[in-house]
């Protein structure tokens, strides 16, 4: 019976299982030694051995995860042989849509794809410093539109070792945020989206909202010596994003940086970030800008209230 194991199809005849089966049938007829069922088993074995593939599942282990192989398996997968493990199901390729992002490092592009693949939502937007050149980002800002985001932060931390800041919102809230919040507008001046999006920004000034955002920047003068360069830059950027918004200009990161340099002098953004700026001349100009923006906001609040009363 185990003549079967020794049976080998000559190399030149290895054209396919059917060919092999015909050869084997001829061999059986000649020897008259095998039944039809035995030949069927043999044929089955040949097919399996020719496939040399097993679909198995990766299971979790204490120190290492593993794949269990059945004892009854193709000979090519015997003990000691080297194998390739690859996903059985080919993942659907997602082509992210990048907006105002000239270049992204390949590793970041891969992370973006993985994030998009693992979120079930109407759309997903990745924004913030993650999309800037280099690796000086703090976290990944992810906006999930009409979808689930449970466990997403843990997933990203577990798989990429990165911190994620996830915001869930509806399409309407996203639109409202872009229309009313300069910081949101600035954050979305560069982004990657799972689905194509077109934003039509119709600025709507909500003075009370701008007031709470501005309050953050108030503490810069007294904390100046204790803050790191990036924090000083963030607080200054916050103030100037609001200033631009009040002037009915779109707040993008580039425009805000230009406005800072125009107010304080060329090179201020770089020096702020590098924490090499001397305190006094900067703070004097900063307070002046703060007062100007604050007064404009207060005038707006007062006008709105008067209009409400008159209405």
């Amino acid at each position, binding site marked *: 019976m185990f003549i079967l194991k020794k049976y080998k199809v000559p190399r030149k005849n290895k054209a396919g299982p059917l060919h092999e089966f015909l050869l084997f049938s001829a061999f059986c007829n000649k020897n008259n030694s095998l039944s039809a069922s035995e030949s069927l088993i043999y044929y089955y074995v040949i097919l399996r051995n020719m496939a040399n593939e097993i679909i198995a599942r990766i299971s979790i282990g204490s120190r290492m995860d593993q794949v269990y192989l059945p004892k009854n398996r193709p000979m090519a997968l015997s003990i000691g042989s080297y194998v390739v493990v690859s996903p059985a199901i080919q993942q659907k390729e997602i082509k992210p849509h990048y907006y105002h992002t000239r270049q992204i490092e390949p590793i970041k592009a891969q992370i973006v794809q993985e994030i998009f693949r693992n979120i079930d939502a109407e759309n997903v937007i990745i924004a913030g410093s993650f999309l800037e050149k280099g690796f000086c980002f703090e976290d990944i800002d992810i906006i999930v539109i009409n979808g689930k985001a449970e466990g997403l932060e843990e997933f990203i931390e577990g798989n990429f070792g990165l911190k994620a800041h996830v915001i869930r919102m509806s399409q309407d809230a996203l639109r*409202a945020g872009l229309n009313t*919040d300069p910081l949101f507008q600035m954050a979305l001046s560069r982004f990657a989206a799972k689905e194509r999006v077109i934003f039509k920004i119709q600025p709507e000034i*909500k003075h*009370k*909202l701008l*007031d*709470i*955002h501005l*309050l*953050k920047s*108030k*503490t810069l003068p*007294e*904390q100046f*010596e*204790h803050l790191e360069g990036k924090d000083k830059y963030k607080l200054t950027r916050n103030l100037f994003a609001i200033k631009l918004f009040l002037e009915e200009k779109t707040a993008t990161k580039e425009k805000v940086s230009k406005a800072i340099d125009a107010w304080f002098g060329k090179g201020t953004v770089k020096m702020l970030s590098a924490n090499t700026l001397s305190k006094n001349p900067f703070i004097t100009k900063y307070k002046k800008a703060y007062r100007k923006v604050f*007064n404009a906001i*207060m*005038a707006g*609040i*007062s006008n709105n*209230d*008067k209009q409400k009363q008159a209405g």
Partner: protein
Amino acid sequence: MTSRNKLVRIFIGNAANAVVHKVLEKAIEEENLRKYYEKEVHNSFLIAKKYREMINPVGRALPESEDIKADIVKKAKQELNIRIKKGYKNIDIDSVSPATEKLLKKLKANKA
């Protein structure tokens, strides 16, 4: 000014900011705006907490807690009064003191 005193001053500034955010949150009628305020209240609380953790003793009440409380109340009221003068409505200036007390308790900065 010693480093500790400087940190206390910065802590007072940030805590006053958190209190102002809290009081302004209550003055908001619009529901959508209120959500933003909640977020800002939380953020300013976290900044104040960061500075509180730099001041010794960390886990216990600060010896100068009464002075700190008075300074926070004064600063927060000053900030809110500017708004009232400029025509901001519905600001409850009386809620500054209890809000400060609550904040300091959360930050383990005052005597229980």
